[in-house]
């Protein structure tokens, strides 16, 4: 093995992941070309709305990836993961809001429209700094990271685990939802932040910008995958698994479980924040709905559908479920909930390891392996 292959050995170890990386990085290059350079009449042309849809899916995939990192590997079932996504989104939204300048309806160069008509006279302190991209970009990571740090520090130190943790994360996102709904918070209340014009000087409604955003999202996804893969393939990853399966035993071996959990929790929160920041300019709105507990549950469901505990599975799950949603809400607007619901039920019943596990199942059936890699032993996280 040469030094390079040694250094990226952690990537090579996971074949599904490699395929994913190639696919995502390929898409980052090919999709913009097919969208911008190929004539619209050509069958190879990718229309604009597909580009922005795919960009959205990839942002969701990044979010699912981060959720899988903590759920699949550390056993932290966060039902409030969407909160970090939303916070990242808001940080980006605030930057975009500030970029509008005096192009808002009331023409106020300082204040966003919603502040003007609700009679705010000056920009609240927490809005300052967001006119600079670098600051906003930092906040995209720092704000979710900080929340995760504080929340996680308290929760993990007090050894809140299992469903108790899940439910208080849900309480967290629910509380944030209500808080952001309040117009007095200064984040646009229920309507959230919209009407964005441009990002770093590029017009958001421009096709090139959209294609570029897509590529950036794909890159971010690939990079985050690399980070997650590095973490999970390292010994730290194995410690996390140990924590997931037998937390107190891990402690007796001298590992500071709370620090390990906190570490991945914060990393995942920052990734979710990044996903949110990439999502917002592509869909053009961020509002408190993103904090809703239902959204966070959905994230978990993407991961479960794809295959918990396999990073590329989470990505696959997010894309699949969201594609399904896009397709069915258009094709079967009245019955799509049946389809989606049935899909979830079917996945649990027939694909215990998610879509990814299906492949493994087939393989297993094809050649009986010497050692049973997938035993009947499942982890019970629910305290009884």
């Amino acid at each position, binding site marked *: 093995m040469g030094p390079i292959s040694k250094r990226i050995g952690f990537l090579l170890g996971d074949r599904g992941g490699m395929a994913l990386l190639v696919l995502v990085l390929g898409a980052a290059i090919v999709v913009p070309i097919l969208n911008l350079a190929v004539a619209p009449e050509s069958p190879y042309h990718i*229309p*604009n*709305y597909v580009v*922005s*849809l795919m960009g*959205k899916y990839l942002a969701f995939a990044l979010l699912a990836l981060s959720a899988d990192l903590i759920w699949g590997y550390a056993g932290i079932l966060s039902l409030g993961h969407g909160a970090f996504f939303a916070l990242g989104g808001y940080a980006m939204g605030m930057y975009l809001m500030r970029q509008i300048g005096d192009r808002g*309806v*009331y*023409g*106020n160069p300082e204040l966003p429209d*919603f502040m*003007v*008509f*609700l*009679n705010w006279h000056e920009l609240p302190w927490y809005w300052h700094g967001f006119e600079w991209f670098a600051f906003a970009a930092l906040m995209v990571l720092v704000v979710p990271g900080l929340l995760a740090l504080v929340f996680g520090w308290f929760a993990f130190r007090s050894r809140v685990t299992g469903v108790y943790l899940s439910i208080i994360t849900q309480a967290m996102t629910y509380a944030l939802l*209500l808080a952001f*709904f*309040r*117009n007095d918070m200064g984040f646009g*209340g*229920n*309507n*959230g932040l*919209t*009407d*964005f014009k441009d990002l770093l000087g590029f017009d958001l*409604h421009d096709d090139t910008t959209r294609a570029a955003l897509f590529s950036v999202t794909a890159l971010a996804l690939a990079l985050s995958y690399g980070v997650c893969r590095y973490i999970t393939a390292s010994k730290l990853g194995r410690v996390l698994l140990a924590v997931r399966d037998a937390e107190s035993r891990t402690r007796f071996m001298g590992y500071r479980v709370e620090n390990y959990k906190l570490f991945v929790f914060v990393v995942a929160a920052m990734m979710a924040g990044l996903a949110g920041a990439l999502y917002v300019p592509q*869909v*053009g*709105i961020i*509002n408190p*709905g993103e904090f809703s507990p239902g959204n966070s549950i959905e994230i978990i469901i993407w991961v479960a559908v794809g295959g918990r505990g396999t990073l590329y599975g989470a990505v696959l799950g997010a894309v699949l479920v969201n594609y399904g*949603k*896009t397709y069915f*809400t*258009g094709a079967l*607007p*009245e019955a*799509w*909930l049946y389809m989606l619901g049935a899909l979830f039920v079917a996945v649990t019943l027939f694909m215990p390891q998610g879509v990814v596990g299906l492949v493994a199942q087939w393989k297993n059936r094809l050649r009986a392996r010497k050692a049973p890699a997938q035993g009947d032993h499942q982890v019970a996280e629910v305290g009884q």
Partner: protein
Amino acid sequence: AETIKVGVLHSLSGTMAISETTLKDTVLMMVDDLNKKGGLLGKKVEAVVVDPASNWPLFAEKTRELIEKEKVDVIFGCWTSVSRKSVLPVIEELNGLLFYPVQYEGEESSRNVFYTGAAPNQQAIPAVDYLLSEEGGAAKRIVLLGTDYVYPRTTNKILRAYLNSKGISDADIMENYTPFGHSDWQTIVGDVKKFASAGKKTAVVSTINGDANVPFYKELANQGIKAEEIPVVAFSVGEEELSGIDAKPLVGHLAAWNYFMSVNNDTNAAFIKKWHAFIKDSKRVTNDPMEATYIGFNMWVQAVEQAGTANVDAVRQAMYGQKVPNLTGGMAVMNSNHHLSKPVLIGEIQPDGQFETVWKTEGTVVGDAWSDFIPQSAKLTADWTYPWVCGNCEKPKY
């Protein structure tokens, strides 16, 4: 294209499905009707229904899909303001056409949107006028109850300014906001009672939204708040919301709309009949947003016919000044600020869940995009015809 496509962008699932599904059916009914009459410009009209599932970003996505992929000529859709705000950038970017049929907080005028629901001056202000009048009970204290989101906040801000101008001081105004879907109203109804016991005639203005209304009215009834003591006038409660409640204890409470199902005239009777036939359920009610959809659809049809094409720019030009009969007997007119002129009605709840009109504006009221009671917005004018050509101008733009 050999067909003219109409996009229908109403939530069929999720929290808003309860209200929006009806509007989807209304559009489908209108399309059906139009096709029976031979279509539009000799072409068949095709409705493309999608479900944005009460998910606001999904509204934007679906709009893009409707316009770019399905190539629809017009979209009827949205209920909540946030869904409209989400759609707005897309529809402007792609130069689409949206008809928005619900009463809202105003403070908006887009070249690509026609607002056929009521602006605050077509609903809230007349309703308060009525409460303050001798006939409406000459209220001296007002409780503003609302769900905590932009429409109630804005409306109440406008109302507060208006009430102040009518000599009601801030001490006599109580404002209270609750989360979406709030279901436990015991405390608040109790507070209203307390507020009302300060010795001045009190009335409640409710901008409570959607699902929260049923438990609110149930609590009102059970705590025995009678309309003749503390009348409640609501802006978001129509026939459909009432159909979920036993209305008998609520008789006398009020709502302000531009339409009531109970309005007695031939156009309305025909509309109701058509609706019942279409939905195959003679118990289903009609309501104001349905009328707004009806007006919007008919206007669009007329405008297309007048323009001779479904092309968005041509249709938009043809829309200005377009008149269609509304269901309350009279004509709705599309103004150049993309808002309608409509009459305002105040109705009392009847035991059967219907409203009886107790007051009606003389003639019609012109919808205001920008409220006169918000200082920054009072300066603005929305006018999409020469010489303004702008949704938010302080001076004419040529």
